[in-house]
């Protein structure tokens, strides 16, 4: 027998097959999960992975090239770059996640309201959004941090103020489609209030696009955090943050390339991981959607 009769398979086998095929079909999801997992381990248990403290100085080993003892070399204070990069993971990850989470929530709610109520509510919210859209993301963030003053908290505030616009637009367009679906009309005929319809019936059906975007947005926020720290507007030295480490190492770039290169590579690694995860998630949510 060379053809497989699908109807002859027990449902459990079919289910398993479907799961495997999604897993196989989306190598990006696999790679993303593994890479993000590694980043999470680094962020969770930096002390177990790095032998040295990220801040203890060692005047005898200044600007040493990568070796077995110091795999990423040492910086101008003799600090272990590997330890600094590993310990920086938690800070960069926190920036990425926190700076994504808040705009994800506020933006989605704004999009929900704009898309559902339409008319003047939509017009007002969308014109405000246009103002934010008119400026490049990072320029606006830098401007706000410059006004509020440098520091991690102000960095968060700046990204929260600017980051909601993409979520609002994504969710709004999805809501405009969903609110005309018959299940929403059915909910209205059943007498459900707006709040119940919005949160229980529309929101779960419009969030998948936002979730996928958020996974990719974590990368953007990590990069923004690193960029601002590099410019001296975000995390302040001696806290080990990748952008700040690169900023400090910039002066020694010609003698000690490793100070800048390894935190840069860490950024690339984490960024790629979250991008792949977002990519894989969009595949997964699309196949599951109907």
């Amino acid at each position, binding site marked *: 027998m060379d053809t497989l009769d699908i109807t002859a398979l027990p449902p459990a086998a079919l289910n398993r097959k479907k799961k495997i095929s999604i897993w196989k079909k989306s190598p990006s999801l696999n790679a993303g999960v593994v890479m993000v997992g590694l980043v999470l381990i680094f962020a969770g248990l930096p002390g177990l992975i790095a032998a040295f403290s990220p801040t203890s100085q060692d005047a005898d080993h200044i600007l040493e090239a990568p070796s077995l003892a110091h795999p990423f070399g040492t910086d101008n204070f003799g600090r272990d770059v590997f330890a600094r990069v590993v310990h920086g993971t938690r800070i960069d990850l926190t920036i990425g996640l926190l700076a994504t989470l808040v705009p994800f929530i506020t933006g989605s709610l704004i999009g929900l309201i704009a898309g559902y109520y339409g008319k003047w509510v939509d017009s007002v919210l969308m014109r405000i959004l246009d103002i934010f859209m008119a400026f490049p993301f990072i320029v606006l963030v830098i401007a706000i941090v410059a006004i509020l003053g440098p520091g991690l908290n102000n960095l968060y505030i700046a990204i929260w103020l600017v980051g909601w616009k993409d979520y609002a637009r994504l969710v709004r367009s999805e809501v405009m489609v969903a609110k005309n*679906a*018959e*299940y929403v*009309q*059915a*909910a*209205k*005929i*059943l*007498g*459900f209030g707006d709040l*119940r319809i919005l949160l*229980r*019936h529309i929101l*779960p*059906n419009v969030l998948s696009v936002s979730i996928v975007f958020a996974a990719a947005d974590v990368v953007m926020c990590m990069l923004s955090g690193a960029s601002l720290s590099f410019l001296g507007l975000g995390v302040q030295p001696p806290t080990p943050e990748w952008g700040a480490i690169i900023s400090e190492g910039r002066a020694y770039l010609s003698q000690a390339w490793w100070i800048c290169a390894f935190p840069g590579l860490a950024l690339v690694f984490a960024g790629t991981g979250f991008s792949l995860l977002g990519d894989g998630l969009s595949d997964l949510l699309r196949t599951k*959607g*109907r």
Partner: protein
Amino acid sequence: MDTHVAEKQYIQVEGLSKTFKLKHPIIDILMKKPRKLLKAVDDVSFTIEKGETLGLVGESGCGKSTLARTIVRLYEPDQGKIFFDGLDIAALEGKALREERKKFQMIFQDPYSSLNPRMSVRDMLTEVMLFHRICTRSEVDHHIAELLRTVGMSEATAERFPGEFSGGQRQRLGIARALALNPSFIIADEPVSALDVSIQAQVINLLADIQEALNLTLLFISHDLRVVRHVTHRVAVMYLGKIVEMAETEALFKEAAHPYTKVLIKAAPVLDPRNRTREYAIEGEPPSPINLPAGCRFNPRCSYAKDICRREEPRLEEVKPGRLAACHFPLIA
């Protein structure tokens, strides 16, 4: 049947109108042109007795669905009254309306968009029943089992999501949701037109059985005349927002009074290989409801049209006992 005795009528719609305002382009505002209006439902009146099925037929775009959605207050009526068991629901607001909503429900056309894809059958039905306090939380499971049995599905399906069901099954679930509130009036908006022909009969028979068992009053909207003939007691024919003819089903199919009804019946496909002639086929598209023709709305497509038809709009009047038609020259007199 006397349609003028108001007290006996369970559902009584009087002079219902719904007009949509179209977008007003900036050029038109500058040129001071008035905003264009779309008269989807124009001065519609009809009645339904308790336990009766009224069919509503007409081409797509004639306002059938708008009429249905206005009756259930999904759209705000511009004018007119909707008496439901003596109470004008067109005037109700807020809590009173929500309370009254229990009694009238709707079954939708597209089974693929009428169920929330992220809610299991149990969640969906539980929410409906608890929201309207149909029963207590402990009784919910019992009620769900009973509902599912009523629509011919097993209790085991309650944990599943809409995506796991076929079109026919989804439509059954839609019916179960409508029945969850024990309504006495149901509007079925093209309930089977999205289904395979083989499934249509099952769902129609289910609806007919349930109607009989629960003594429901039904407004059955369809463009499929065979289905309408099968399930309805009386039929109203709609054309461009107005009812042009209303009669008992068999009488209407035997002999149409309005020329539009006649072509509509003739245009319906007949399953008879020997009958290959098509005497009448309706010509052209219906005129746009934005620029209605003067006089009778059907006059541009009517083969009987005379001068008066292009000047004066005919009123819906009794042409024979129990038969209403809006035509200057009804085909039966």
